[in-house]
């Protein structure tokens, strides 16, 4: 009796989250300066999907397909990538205070982007450098943990802290040197994170890395789940520890670097969403991963909607994720009182 309940309950939660995401997805098309009626949004999306004859204005199509759709896609991708990476890292490090930035990927990407801006590169190259910077930083952390530490998870985390601090300092150097009239604000805005500059092309560039990494994480979801009880026990149950740890680090890094390269540094999502997911479905990683992905994309969509509608000027998403996320989190913490940690 009980077992049927828990199984179907999890499925119900998953389906309701998906429906919720769908609602937020369509609602997001309505948000913005230029008003588009809900039926028009459906008409344009369906029409383009099925190649129906156009019976809407060109400006409407531009708003829906060129302005809002890329941004919505990007929010879904970035939200799910950050949450997926966060939940995988928390299981890997067996610590619920870990965020995707733990191994220095954000600091590295920030440095890459800032360098690109100082060197006056095109937007495409800035994104490329951010992505590369993220990967290089995690590579450094891994190298420090492996060659200077004792190859344990702790030395890896220490490596990440060192590398983060170093790249943060490099970012400060670049900011100090940057032209205060245009480059410095650009760097500062980028570091706050936001989706206002995202184009469809960016989204399509980031998508393969994220999808492949996500699928790989999904393939080893049970192994990651078992790793949650500790290395020795997981080893005794037949898990190839180093192999699984390696895959998780590579995948989470790819996902985060791809997300950060198109959106800048959006903090808090990768920390908050895994917790909320754990409140909802418990500690089982196989359930946690899909739930975190759905919640992460829904959350970022919602926040992005707020960011472009709440004031006349757009507020960077990275600021709002914390301003809205922190009180929400405290509220949930007070409400639940259960030890999902």
């Amino acid at each position: 009796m009980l077992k049927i309940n828990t199984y179907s309950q999890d499925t119900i939660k998953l389906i309701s989250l998906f429906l919720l995401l769908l609602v937020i997805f369509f609602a997001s098309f309505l948000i913005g300066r230029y008003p588009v009626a809900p039926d028009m949004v459906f008409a344009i999306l369906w029409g383009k999907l099925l190649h129906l004859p156009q019976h809407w204005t060109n400006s409407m199509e531009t708003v829906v397909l060129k302005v809002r759709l890329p941004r919505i896609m990007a929010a879904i991708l970035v939200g799910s990538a950050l949450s997926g990476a966060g939940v995988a890292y928390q299981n890997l490090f067996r610590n619920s205070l870990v965020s995707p930035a733990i191994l220095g990927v954000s600091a590295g990407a920030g440095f890459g982007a800032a360098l690109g801006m100082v060197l006056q590169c095109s937007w495409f190259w800035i994104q490329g450098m951010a992505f590369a910077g993220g990967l290089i930083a995690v590579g450094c952390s891994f190298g420090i943990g492996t060659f200077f530490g004792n190859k344990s998870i702790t030395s890896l985390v220490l490596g990440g802290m060192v590398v983060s601090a170093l790249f943060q300092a490099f970012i400060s150097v670049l900011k100090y040197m940057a032209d205060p009239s245009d480059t410095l604000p650009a760097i500062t805005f980028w570091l706050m994170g936001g989706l206002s500059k995202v184009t469809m092309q960016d989204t399509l560039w980031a998508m393969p890395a994220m999808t492949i990494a996500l699928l790989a994480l999904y393939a080893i979801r049970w192994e990651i789940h078992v790793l949650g009880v500790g290395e020795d026990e997981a080893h005794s149950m037949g898990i190839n520890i180093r192999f699984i740890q390696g895959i998780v680090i590579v995948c989470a890094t790819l996902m985060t670097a791809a997300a950060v390269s198109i959106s800048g540094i959006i903090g808090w999502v990768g920390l908050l969403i895994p917790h909320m997911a754990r409140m909802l479905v418990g500690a089982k990683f196989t359930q946690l991963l899909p739930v975190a992905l759905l919640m992460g994309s829904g959350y970022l969509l919602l926040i992005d909607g707020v960011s472009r509608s709440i004031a006349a000027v757009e507020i960077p998403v990275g600021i709002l994720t914390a301003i809205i996320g922190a009180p929400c989190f405290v509220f949930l913490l007070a409400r639940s009182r259960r030890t999902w940690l």
Partner: protein
Amino acid sequence: MIEVQDVCFNYADEGNLLQNISFSAAPGDVVCLLGPNGAGKTTLLRCLLDINKPSQGKILVNGNDVKTMRPKEKAKFVAYVPQNTTAVFSYLVIEVVIMGRTPHLQRMTTPSNRDREIAEKALAQLEITHLAHRHFDELSGGERQMVLIARALAQQAQILIMDEPTASLDYGNQVRILKLVRMLAGQGYTIIMSSHFPDHAFLSANQVLMMQKGVVLERGHPEQVVTTENLTHLYASAIQVVEVTPQTHSNKPMKVCVPMIEQEAEGVFQAAQKTAAFQVRPLGSAMTDREGNEC
């Protein structure tokens, strides 16, 4: 069947933590490791689990060298019952037990209903089905130990490695675990466990390894090995093994170990030290592992 042949172990720059350990255990055997803190009991168990890689010697499981076995294959033969799991997340008991099915899963899949049934059967066998939907981290020490044993049973490995299964349990739970160990041995499991209570060797084991500073001092049936002289020497305190006859139907005598705390016992201790049947080979001084824990 597990055979340990001449195993040595050391961390890179330190002296041997284990030196020339050999023993074997067949189905139905219960091997009890006795020895003071830092004797190398846990280090040896970790070698058997292939967590520590022996620097010399071989460990054979059903004739296969564990070094050459893939982790998944090995996990089908050897299961681990830790003192307490290091899990930080709040898992349900049934989820913990199902994890034992890991070595039997196909790649990229999660446990099926059949795996779930096997896990439920393991819980039923230990009569803890009522715990299935409790949170593991909210259980008492005794209950946790039972759940971890259930997980090992769900793993369906014939060799169980138990690291101090009775540590930090109350007296009743200790007795329950020892009964369980005997029952499992009766079903054909091989159990290798460590203990800080020499009495447990009498109660559950048919083979004792007395370890000190990484060396096996004595090996054999508890009746022959767990003696006043050996215990007194092993733990460097006066301990007497006495025979008592509890009032049962058979009136079968039992041996128990009694620590001699009274002053007069000092004399016994010194006499025992003189007549000790063995000599400890002096080894490297550092006998703790890197974290300073006993090993």
